[in-house]
């Protein structure tokens, strides 16, 4: 990626509410958008925190889920010949409440409505389908457009009130009239009661008929049409829970081989399983683990090696894992060690004690590939996110914040200074804000468009045209 053509910002935008303008939502309440000064009343709350971001297969739609159980879908505007410099911008297309908080009466535990993951299905007709999941229940949502309305019913009048059948003297054929576009979301399937533990991943199979859902100890295989049963394909629950040593942290189907999936663990290992070998894939086909130098082992070693995300490359030849301090690229043909290791924020290694005390060491960062698998991206703290170019071996740190994201401005690379003299524009490790975490990022499947979730704000960045 050419560093001179760094993504153009389509973020922030408290002053831009033009048609087709900045889609990025304001962290402040509506009155700020209208120009009033509400710096004192930052009225966003826990529910607004974005918990997942996902582009669909074409990249025309971008879905976000939040802690309040809501889904917001953005759609890319068609390129406009009269405004050639405004590349397809993303505007709100649909929003709906996907999950509600529930109460598990048996265990007296509440079930959060937070959306853990959204995964799109490939488009097969005019409607769009996505799977969204909270800790316990997966739902298949259909998002469809309605731009016509029937008028001239016989049995009811224009208000919808029923007509007296005895007063009807003539029959007419209703006609379809255009109406303002309405986007409707309806739940088509609800896949419930299959997970004792908390769902961390869902992944649609390349067969487009099945998908998997993974919780801390088990992985289930579902058919998209069937909600009353699922097959358990991985079960790592020990007979005696005292013997529990690791949990499943993420799982994903191979992008092309419908019989292959991987799952990662809290011990930093990845297992690749082949569903053709047996019904219960407790025995892996491949086991990926980087050897560790025993003399460097510390109290923190296992915690920071826990994998928070695993993603296959689009090619299907590689997979990427994210642990606390790094991103690793693995060749599926080599189990002994990764082929690439990229340091995300190595300067945090000397802060592990504090990060353990404030629980940040347990933060789960995600990672993603670009469409051509030549670059990877992941988030960090202080609203920083990192991009690594695998071809040129260059990397960059960028910031997703209102102050540094004026619309149509280029993002300036950031640098963290680890000690000694702090240069101008650098930020020292001790000044980093660990409450500003970028856990969720997404890359358009084909273009250089990225979506970055910074707490309750969504930033969409695009490459400069020229």
């Amino acid at each position, binding site marked *: 990626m050419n560093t001179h053509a760094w993504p153009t910002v389509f973020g922030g935008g408290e002053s831009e509410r033009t048609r087709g303008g900045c889609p990025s939502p304001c962290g402040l309440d509506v009155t700020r958008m209208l120009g009033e000064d509400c710096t004192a009343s930052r009225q966003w709350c*826990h529910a607004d925190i974005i918990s997942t971001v996902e582009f669909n297969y074409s990249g025309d739609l971008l879905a976000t889920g939040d802690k309040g159980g809501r889904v917001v879908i953005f759609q890319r505007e068609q390129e406009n010949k009269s405004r050639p410099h405004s590349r397809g911008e993303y505007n709100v297309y649909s929003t709906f409440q996907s999950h509600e908080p529930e109460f598990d009466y048996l265990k007296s535990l509440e079930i959060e409505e937070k959306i853990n993951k959204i995964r799109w299905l490939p488009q097969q007709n005019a409607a769009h389908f996505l799977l969204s999941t909270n800790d316990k229940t997966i739902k298949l949502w259909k998002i469809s457009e309605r731009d016509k309305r029937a008028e001239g019913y016989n049995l009811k009048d224009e208000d919808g009130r029923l007509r007296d059948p005895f007063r009807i003297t003539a029959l007419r054929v209703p006609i379809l009239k255009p109406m303002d576009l309405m986007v409707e979301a309806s739940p088509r399937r609800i896949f419930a009661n299959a997970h004792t533990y908390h769902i961390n991943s869902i992944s649609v199979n390349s067969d487009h008929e099945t998908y998997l859902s993974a919780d801390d100890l088990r992985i289930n295989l579902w058919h998209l049409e069937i909600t009353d049963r699922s097959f358990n394909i991985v079960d790592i629950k020990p007979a005696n829970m005292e013997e529990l040593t*690791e949990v499943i942290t993420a799982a994903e189907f191979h992008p092309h081989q419908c019989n292959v999936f991987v799952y990662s663990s809290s011990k930093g290992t990845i297992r690749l399983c082949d569903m053709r070998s047996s019904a219960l894939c407790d025995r892996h086909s491949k086991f990926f683990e980087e050897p560790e130098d025993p003399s460097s*082992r510390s109290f923190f070693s296992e915690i920071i090696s826990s994998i928070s995300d695993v993603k296959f490359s689009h090619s299907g030849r590689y997979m990427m894992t994210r642990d606390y301090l790094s991103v690793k690229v693995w060749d599926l043909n080599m189990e002994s060690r990764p082929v690439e290791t990229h340091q995300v924020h190595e300067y945090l290694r000397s802060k*592990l004690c504090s990060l353990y*005390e404030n629980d940040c060491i347990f933060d789960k960062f995600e990672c993603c590939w670009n469409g051509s698998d030549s670059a990877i991206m992941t988030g960090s703290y202080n609203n920083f996110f990192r991009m690594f170019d695998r071809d040129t071996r260059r990397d960059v740190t960028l910031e997703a914040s209102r102050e540094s994201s004026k619309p149509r401005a280029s993002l300036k690379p950031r640098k963290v200074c680890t000690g000694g003299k702090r240069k101008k524009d650098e930020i020292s490790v001790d000044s980093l804000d660990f409450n500003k975490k970028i856990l969720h990022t997404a890359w358009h499947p084909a273009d250089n468009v990225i979506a970055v979730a910074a707490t309750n704000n969504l930033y969409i960045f695009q490459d400069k045209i020229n």
Partner: protein
Amino acid sequence: SEHSMHPWSLQLSIPNNLEEMEDKVTSPEKAEEAKLKARYPHLGQKPGGSDFLRKRLQKGQKYFDSGDYNMAKAKMKNKQLPAAAPDKTEVTGDHIPTPQDLPQRKPSLVASKLAG
């Protein structure tokens, strides 16, 4: 913090020989480990290795019963929305939780601000 409730970390291969550990404080990670042990001297001495993992499996707000939960929800509907509410530690085990003990949760009946 909740680190009295993280005995999972105790199952890591912490050197039995404390002197060996003190000698090796050259790496930043080991230096951090020494710092942690200085602050929490009892780390590494509690029995039960998988408590942390089991706590992770059980994550979620625990209420005394469903009546308690419903009362807490009802009280929350009448209150002002707070700024980002930090997650509180679990209220369980020591006493019966009351709605006052519980962190505020806003019911998700309002549309997302992302939707404009």
